[in-house]
């Protein structure tokens, strides 16, 4: 793990090796939340086996963190190139609505249940992911080829996307009854929730993709200095296009999970503000919003922090109106801990710190 953070912090700040690896901070935050529960929440760590599946608060965290985690992993690469993708919530809504639309036999008319309980799933996933990929390519082309700032480029789809999703569902909440489709959201594999298995799968694929081929290096280089990378022969446009495509596909997968989980597609609320949680997870995980360095490991920790926090608040029986405040305070606290200024201040007593640009 220290290896990961060491390879992923190249560039502007030399002599970082003596510093604490960045992933320590989010791990510390996660540990604090878990220790809090160990001390104060009874039964938080108990894991029981029922019908061959694992049950317990920790397993629940893994399951519920999955959609955010999958999106955040794609977002990590986007932010690594110095970009941002705020359309992921809407893209998830499009993909989820498309999946529901296809499960119901490409019709929003209220059919007999039997008519769609056996819809083949291949076209369902294919069309949902195709829609998500198209969204990703749209974002990517705007950023890479038209040269629009990422936040504006993806703002277009963020606003338009939910409208498109509503068109797909015809403004209804499309309810589903399709056991095999529901497996995606509520099924278990090897005793673990299937959404979490999917998230791990996405993580492994992205890790291999960025390590086995030099894509990871290209992403860091593009994020560090896009112009210089272009001159040194990196096809920065393709790199950018690719990360937005990956981000779109991740959002698509999350959308399918969300639809499958609640057995319905609600285009208005599905994945609402998911982009914010995903970006938070990435930033809490130690990836700089300025680009140039990223950490997929950190993102996993970040997503787990957010979900552990939410689950803790819920299991502690905190009144529901206080949840947002607690979340805000913790997030601000994590931001302050991670701020360069705070670290400079903490390290000033030990040695002279080179001023960072």
């Amino acid at each position, binding site marked *: 793990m220290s290896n990961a953070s060491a390879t992923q912090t190249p560039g502007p700040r030399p002599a970082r090796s003596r510093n604490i690896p960045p992933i320590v901070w989010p791990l510390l935050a996660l540990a604090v939340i878990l220790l809090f529960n160990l001390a104060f929440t009874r039964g938080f760590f108990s894991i029981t086996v029922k019908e061959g599946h694992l049950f317990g608060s920790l397993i629940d965290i893994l399951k519920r963190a999955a959609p955010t985690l999958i999106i955040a992993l794609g977002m990590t690469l986007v932010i690594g190139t110095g970009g941002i993708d705020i359309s992921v919530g809407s893209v998830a809504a499009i993909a989820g609505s498309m999946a529901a639309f296809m499960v119901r036999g490409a019709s929003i008319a209220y059919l007999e249940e039997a008519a769609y309980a056996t819809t083949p799933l291949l076209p369902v996933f294919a069309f949902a992911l195709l829609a998500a990929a198209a969204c990703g390519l749209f974002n990517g082309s705007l950023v890479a080829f038209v040269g629009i700032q990422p936040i*504006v480029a993806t703002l277009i789809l963020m606003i338009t996307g939910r409208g498109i999703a509503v068109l797909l569902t015809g403004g209804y909440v499309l309810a589903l009854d399709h056991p095999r489709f529901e497996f995606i959201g509520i099924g278990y594999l090897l005793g673990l929730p299937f959404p979490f298995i999917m998230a791990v799968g996405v993580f492994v694929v992205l890790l291999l993709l960025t390590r086995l081929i030099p894509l990871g290096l290209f992403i860091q280089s593009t994020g560090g200095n896009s112009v210089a990378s272009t001159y040194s022969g990196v096809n920065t446009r393709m790199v950018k296009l690719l990360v937005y495509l990956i981000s779109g596909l991740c959002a698509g997968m999350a959308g399918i999970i969300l639809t499958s989980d609640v057995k319905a597609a609600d285009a208005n609320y599905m994945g609402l503000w998911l982009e914010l949680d995903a970006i938070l997870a990435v930033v809490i995980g130690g990836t700089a919003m300025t680009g140039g360095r990223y950490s997929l490991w950190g993102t996993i920790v970040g997503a787990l922090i957010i979900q552990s926090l939410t689950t803790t608040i819920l299991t502690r029986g905190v009144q529901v109106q206080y*949840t947002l405040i607690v979340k805000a305070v913790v997030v601000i606290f994590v*931001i302050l801990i991670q701020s360069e200024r705070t670290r400079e201040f903490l390290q000033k007593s030990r040695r002279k710190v080179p001023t960072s640009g």
Partner: protein
Amino acid sequence: MSSTTDTGASRPKQGLLAGLKQRIPILSPALVFIVIFATGGLLYRHFFSLQVLLNLFTDNAFLGIAAVGMTFVIISGGIDLSVGAVISTSAMVIAVVDQAGAGPLAGIPLALAFGAAIGFLMGCIIHFFKAHPFIVTLSGMFLARGLGYVLSWQSVPIGSRFYSQASQIGIPMGGILKLSVPALMFIAVVIIGIYIQRTTRYGRNVYAIGGNEQSAFLMGLPIGRTKIMIYTISGLLSGLGGVVLTFYTLQGYGNAAFGLELEAIASVVIGGTLLTGGVGSVLGTLIGVLILGLIQTFIAFQGTLNVYWTKIFIGMMLFAFILLQKAFSFSAGQRK
């Protein structure tokens, strides 16, 4: 350098054509507004009327007021995602104070103070901890919404007579038409905004920071003070937006103005302000807000289209304007 040429604050002497070209970011949305307005007038009876125009100002007042604050934030190169939440919670503050029997004269200053305080706090964190505005204002949004929910989970009605009286006031515009209080407040904020932006040192500092913060710092401009002020003003204006919101809804509601920050950002961008910072104007934002309102009016007049077409149209409009800005900035040779 390129940042100051577009501001209108310091206009270099140039030919008429070059001057026109510089004003494309403001002229094009103005043209689009006129085209939509005229098209609506041709298609629907009563569309092209003073009534519709006045309603644009009245109905979009709280969006517009928040968008003026957002303009300064975006010109400085930042972003403020908290505006919708601050508007909603400020309205809630007024409602709760009214319920307690203290009346709006106590509630309104408290709501404004709340907005300014949360903006000040965010500005301080952004400046002193060098944290990214996106994340900080996102936390601000959670905090403000959360506070609103804590004040009341349900909607709180405002029964004060002050409001029923205020809704009667207005500048008569012939017949039963009048310029309502929200519209007047909106216009006042826009005028003050334009004044600050064009003539004050503070206004120029905002452009300088957005153009190049490093240079602004080296020029000796007060970066910290200006930045904190920008977010404080944005918070204050969101608070004022909340005050205006209570004029229509006569209640405080935790989920009010949901996602309003997106509309505010969209109107700012449509109005010709670049999200990279350094370029933009309050006047443009005014037109952007009016275009957004006009699209909604259009859908309402059309009658059969789903409300969600509004989002699709706004998105497409945003897309078109961004492409236009891109084309324009290439022709002007100012790449970022």
